[in-house]
């Protein structure tokens, strides 16, 4: 298939970026979206032009490194997949595809389509962990956990921190990410101990970094490649309220 690509090019974080148009030809429908960009980059290198920068690592849908806002949707037109798992069969021959980086004040562009997601790391550093004291490993069965909570915690823990929630949200809010991390710990006995301090610290950090405010549009939930539920946001609100009043 032959495609026209409109891709955001930006020299560095300070530079003013702009869209450039590229043509790619003979792309197989079996090709993944990132492979298609690899092919484009090969041709650019052959022409002694700068290749397009974009993030990726595992290309298996588990690391959360790939991003890309494709034709108005984070991770492109397929549901519940990351960009690396998106295939060209989702497009038609002759299509024009617009590729933009995640847009958020808290995720500045590093170069082209590559963005800086350190903000998420900072939120995790603010409280997304369980403090442990050193010593022997306790027996796994010594802490009983009810099955339903274990499942919910596991679902929340499926978040790979890709940032699609922020990219999709009309307010560039990071609520779904933070809520998933808060929930994952708050649901388990090991995490309950520090739950109150955690939710307050993580929410404060999220606000400080310049993410927007949630207005319950649930675009985050709709675009999350790991199907993290917005129920987690309600849980975080509840946790936050309890922490503030106690």
């Amino acid at each position, binding site marked *: 298939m032959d495609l026209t690509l409109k891709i955001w090019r930006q020299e560095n974080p300070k530079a003013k970026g702009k869209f450039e148009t590229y043509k790619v030809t003979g792309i197989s429908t079996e090709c993944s979206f990132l492979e298609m960009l690899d092919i484009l980059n090969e041709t650019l290198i052959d022409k002694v032009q700068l290749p397009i920068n974009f993030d990726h690592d595992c290309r298996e849908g588990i690391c959360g490194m790939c991003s890309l806002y494709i034709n*108005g*949707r984070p991770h492109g037109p397929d549901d519940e997949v990351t960009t690396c798992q998106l295939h060209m069969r989702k497009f038609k021959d002759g299509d024009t595809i617009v590729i*933009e980086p995640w847009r958020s004040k808290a995720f500045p562009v590093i170069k082209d389509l590559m963005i800086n997601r350190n903000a998420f790391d900072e939120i995790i550093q603010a409280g997304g962990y369980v403090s442990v004291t050193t010593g022997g490993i306790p027996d796994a069965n010594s802490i009983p956990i009810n099955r339903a909570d274990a499942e919910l915690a596991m679902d929340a823990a499926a978040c790979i921190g890709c940032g699609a929630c922020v990219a999709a949200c009309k307010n*560039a809010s990071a609520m779904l990410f933070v809520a998933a991390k808060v929930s994952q710990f708050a649901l388990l006995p090991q995490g309950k101990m520090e739950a109150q301090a955690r939710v307050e610290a993580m929410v404060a950090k999220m606000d400080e970094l310049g993410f927007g405010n*949630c*207005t*319950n549009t649930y675009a985050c939930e709709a675009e999350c490649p790991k199907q993290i539920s917005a129920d987690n946001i309600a849980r975080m*609100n*509840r946790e936050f309220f309890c922490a503030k009043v106690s």
Partner: protein
Amino acid sequence: MSMSLVTLSSVTKKFVMAFAGIFLMVFLVVHLAINLCLLRNDGGEWFNAAAHFMGTNYVVKVFEIVLMTGFLIHIFFGILLQIQNWMARPVRYMVTNKTTTPFLSKYMIYTGGIVFIFLIIHFMNFYFREIGLVANDVTMGEGEPNFYQVTINLFSNTTYSILYIVLIATLGFHLNHAFQAAFQSLGLNHPKYTPCIKGFSTVYSIIIAVGFCIIPIFFMFFK
């Protein structure tokens, strides 16, 4: 107050929005009940009695202050959140978002803005007359405003009636999302009850919108 309102945490602002919103939604039910008195064929006796009660009762007077505070808080935070949210994405996308979301949820600031314009028109016609901010020319004995007459005068104008219906429909759209979103914001979420709340949200918004619209339609066609 050591913390300024602007620097309140995002979750706290959601809470405040939801609380104020729920209070306003409860008030709407009371308001609708009073308006439905207009449908009685009693020359406005019940309606004016209700208006008189609302204008003079001391308990209501206290709630009036709470209500006005609710309005101001809801409007203030609505605008504040919107400005902060615009600032959170300084460079916009070229392709507008195509994510499937509940349709009305993305337009709350706009439906809210339209409802605000309606509120001003409505205050000019009724509330400001009551508190003496607007000259009151339609009275019944002792200078008390005759709100039944005011209503009849307004609804005898077809343009006004149609505008009223359109604005109330917008309010209905605003409420449709608002009702269930308030519960989400307050963290009141439950696998069993949340679907009921969402269903009730739709029912509530339809009752309010249809309930208020019946009155101009009644005056247009049956009076």
